[in-house]
């Protein structure tokens, strides 16, 4: 199936989960990454259960914060 990851179309295996995609994409500091699928935010606790579908669009957003 084809999905779009960070604006790039990719061919991936059917049944791919968000958790596996995070690994496959070698996402740095995954504990601080927010994932959206078709603009819906996926809770970290749902990464394993969230199965991607053909045509899905995925974005990785890195936590940005701090304090004085």
């Amino acid at each position: 199936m084809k999905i779009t990851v960070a604006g790039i179309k990719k061919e991936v295996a059917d049944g791919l989960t968000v958790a596996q995609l995070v690994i496959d994409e070698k996402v740095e500091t995954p504990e601080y990454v927010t994932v959206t699928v078709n603009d819906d935010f996926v809770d970290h606790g749902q990464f394993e259960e969230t199965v991607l579908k053909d045509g899905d669009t995925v974005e990785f957003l890195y936590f940005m914060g701090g304090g004085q």
Partner: protein
Amino acid sequence: MIKLSKSDYDKIVAHAQSEAPIEACGLIAGELNGNDKIVKKVYILTNVDHAEEHFTLDPKEQLFAVKDMRANGLTPLGNWHSHPVSPSRPSDEDKRLAYDSSASYMILSLMDDEPVLNSFHIEGDKAEKEELVIVQD
């Protein structure tokens, strides 16, 4: 070196002053030219912490900004935030939460009469000031 237009600098200062004493924050995007970064667009985002000593970018606005960057052929260059009552240097928390060593972290201090903006490269617990050039539009 990182270049920022005077109008974008003014945009950051004006927003930070309007939000004080809450910390203001946002993203910067533009072009890479060798080792130089040229900021072409400054994004103003909501500090979802609404706090005087912390900031977290609103993830929904961050998603919108990332898409806007891509649509306009801009490269994400880093982020900016204000220190309403402390100097323009990364705090321990700023360094701890700086996960992207390729990013520039701009910090605007409003503690004195004149705002002070610096840009930093942060890697681990080490922060190094980058050469920041404000250019007339």
